[in-house]
């Protein structure tokens, strides 16, 4: 007899519908799985056999052939176990085959017959909705995650027997509780811990309000990392759609179990990370740190120490908001819309230009600067030189705290969203050339100042657009839509070194 049930494979972060077909015929006892599965799929034969028997069902002693269709797509991981087991039981007549028509099944089996966690449940639930499969059987622990997707009935079950009961309608598990935001209670470090650093705080406020990239440069121990770690505390909360995107990526990467991720991700990979680790890759392709930082912050501490190839690989994702990874015949797309925050020292010893302690020669410094990729620096909207706070500043009260800045950031973002309504961009940092032209209004003075800055020679064409974006955010923070001359000039100062310094280059 033939049984067929729907499940999903995760292709990158996208769900792909897979039909698990099981055919049982008389013959020597055998269990074959075809359909381009990896080792985990082949081993699933043993898990399915044991789980069926240990759940009190009978494993048919006949010739069993399972097919994972479409056979052209490579299938990875143990998530097909539950679907295989249910199809075997239905095909061997232990429950009605027609019960499997309107249900999708996803989960790994243990030998004892319990259903275990498998990565990417949220993406599977999305797939179920997209393909109009009305019900989805998932492990109990994943029920909350799956129920984030509205419009499907999530059947959270603890084991194979419960799964059969749920599918046959003998015992329908209760709908899981509406998923609560996850991890909102975690105390984030607050900017009230910071003393002094008024310029850095201004730059962080602008970066957070417009989603701009920020480079912190300064001697060791002045607070670059401390500031960067506190940036999430002033970012606006994620919209539900954004939160779903983030949860999906983290779920696929196997880093998250449970409900919705409500806080923006903050990823700080170590500087030994490879290009594949940073933007995604491997076989099967997995999302990299850039994708895990989607809708959040990617923090590269000690930027100069990163491998050149790894940092260069970030260029395209930064510009496009997604990365395409080609493996064999397939191209996978991972989302990478993140804010890049980087920190670096100005020279090998770290004290150049700040302290007489620095004895690095011009050549040493040039060599060090060369390790910072020019094209990447061109994509940094804001450059802040973090300096040692003075003794007086260390003793006085903090300039501000996260709650104050966050309120201003949220207000500025609301202004942006209003202005950008109906476009693909949600903040100034995502404006492309066309949108700048259509949605950003500069007054005459601003146009003139922008022209001056461009003529001074330190700006690339891309840099010019980036200055406009930052100037718009500065205007937004002051409650204006119109960009004025002072906004442009402030954006120029906060950008990298313009014009004159070019002549310093040896």
């Amino acid at each position, binding site marked *: 007899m033939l049984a067929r049930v729907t499940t999903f494979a995760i292709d990158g972060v996208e769900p792909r519908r897979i039909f698990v077909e099981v055919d049982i015929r008389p013959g020597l006892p055998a269990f074959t799985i075809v359909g381009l599965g990896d080792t985990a799929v082949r081993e699933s034969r043993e898990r399915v056999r044991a789980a069926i028997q240990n759940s009190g069902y009978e494993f048919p002693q006949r010739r069993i052939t399972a097919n994972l269709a479409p056979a052209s797509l490579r299938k990875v991981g143990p998530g097909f176990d539950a679907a295989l087991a249910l199809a075997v039981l239905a095909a061997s007549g232990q429950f009605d085959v027609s019960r499997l028509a309107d249900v999708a099944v996803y989960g790994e089996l243990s030998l004892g017959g319990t259903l275990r966690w498998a990565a990417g449940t949220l993406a599977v639930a999305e797939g179920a909705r997209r393909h109009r499969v009305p019900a989805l059987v998932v492990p109990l622990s994943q029920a909350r995650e799956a129920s984030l997707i509205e419009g499907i009935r999530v059947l959270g079950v603890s084991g194979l027997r419960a799964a059969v009961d749920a599918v046959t309608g003998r015992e329908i598990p209760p709908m899981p509780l509406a998923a609560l935001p996850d991890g909102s209670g975690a105390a984030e470090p607050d900017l009230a811990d910071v003393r*002094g*650093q*008024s*310029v*850095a705080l201004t730059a962080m406020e602008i970066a957070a309000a417009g989603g701009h990239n920020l480079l912190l*440069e*300064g*001697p060791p121990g002045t607070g670059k990392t401390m500031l960067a770690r506190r940036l999430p505390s002033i970012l606006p909360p994620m919209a539900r759609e954004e939160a779903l995107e983030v949860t999906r990526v983290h779920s696929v990467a196997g880093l998250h179990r449970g409900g919705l991720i409500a806080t923006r991700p903050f990823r700080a990979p170590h500087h030994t990370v490879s290009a594949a680790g940073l933007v995604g890759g491997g076989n099967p392709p997995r999302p990299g740190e850039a994708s895990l930082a989607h809708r959040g912050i990617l923090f590269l501490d000690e930027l100069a120490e990163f491998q050149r190839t790894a940092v260069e690989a970030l260029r395209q994702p930064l510009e496009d908001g997604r990365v395409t990874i080609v493996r064999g015949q397939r191209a996978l797309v991972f989302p990478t819309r993140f804010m890049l925050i980087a920190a670096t020292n*100005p*020279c090998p010893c770290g*004290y*150049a*230009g*700040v302290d*007489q*302690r*620095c*004895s*690095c*020669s*011009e*050549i040493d*410094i040039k060599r060090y600067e060369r390790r910072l990729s020019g094209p990447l620096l061109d994509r940094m909207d804001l*450059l*802040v*030189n973090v*300096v040692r706070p003075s003794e007086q*500043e260390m003793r006085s009260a903090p300039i501000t705290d996260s709650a104050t800045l966050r309120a201003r950031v949220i207000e500025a973002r609301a202004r942006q969203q209003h202005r950008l309504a109906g476009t693909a961009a949600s903040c100034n940092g995502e404006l492309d050339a066309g949108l700048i032209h259509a949605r950003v209004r500069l007054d005459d003075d601003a146009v003139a*100042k922008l022209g*001056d*800055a461009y003529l*001074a020679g330190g700006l690339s064409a891309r840099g010019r657009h980036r200055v406009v974006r930052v100037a718009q955010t500065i205007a937004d923070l002051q409650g204006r839509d119109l960009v004025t*001359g*002072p906004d*442009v*000039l*402030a954006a*120029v*100062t*906060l950008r990298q*070194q*313009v*014009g*004159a*310094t070019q*002549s*310093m280059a*040896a």
Partner: protein
Amino acid sequence: MAACDVCLRRTWLVERVSGYLEYQRHRVDDILSLEDQLLIEFWREIAERRGVDDELESEYHDFGVAEADLARERAQAAGLELICACDAAYPERLRRLFGPPAVLHVAGGLRRFIELAQADPVAIVGTRHPTVYGTEVAQTLGRGVSVSGLCVVSGMAVGIDAAAHRGALAAGGRTIAVLPGCAATPYPKTNQQLYDQILRNGVAVSELGTGTSVRKWTLIARNRIIAALCELTIVVQGKPRSGALSTAKLARRVGSRLGAVPGSVLVPQSEGPHGLLRDGVVLIRNPQDVLDAVFGAGSREVLDPVLNGLSEDQRAVIEAIQSGVDTLSALVSKRVHTGDTLMLLAELELAGCVRRATGGRYVVTA
């Protein structure tokens, strides 16, 4: 203006023995002050000691009009103009040397060179491995001196020399680069871009003609031209026994004045200038000190057109930067002015009054 046959023969001779001079222990300027015959004697000693059989002497005697014309043609093909010591327009100061260069090869225009050589040239020299401070000072001095109408002379080496030239370029480019090899090719090669910029309004000169390669002794021979060409030689940074200090010694020998820029006592690059200062050379802190040293205290003031016509706020920022409040954070927290600091700094930067140096510090370019 051109070069006479005798001077071209002298240049040919120096080029010809160039390789042999690499292996002797006498002072370069002593050797170059030898008459042709004595130089040939000197060469013969070296050649015999090393068992070299060379036709040099007969070649020297055969050097005639045809050979001189060939040298002129080669120079012309390389875009060089020549002036020899017999010429009345030959820079007077160079005659202070015991063995002045017989022929100067000039790239960028002979007329321009003569004009620049008369415009109170000041030499700014220093180490090839400066600190950030040294580079900044050299550039500031180069610009300030140039703005005041003086000509900056240096050797176009990496480091202080290049910074001094760049400073002069920022103020119109009246600068002379004295090269150790051929004036038609930059040395070091990495400074090609700088060389091209210098030639727009300045000149490059050399003692040796086309096709000569740079040797250790030609670097020192070059230094003696720098020292002799200027009335004042300023050492910005350099370790003792460095090339910059050799220029200082040569300047003393020809009787031109010396200045030195003080630095941090913690870095070795300051040892050279500090040693000079201890011996009583002129203290150079800014372009004004240079003018005082050249023209006498108080007789001329640095006039910077860029700094005129600034608003009161902009002036306040410039003054704050000059007084050491030079980072963005410090400027913002001091609130030395009424307007928006970020805006003022951008205006000043776009106007070319300040620039950002390593570590985000602002430097007044004047």
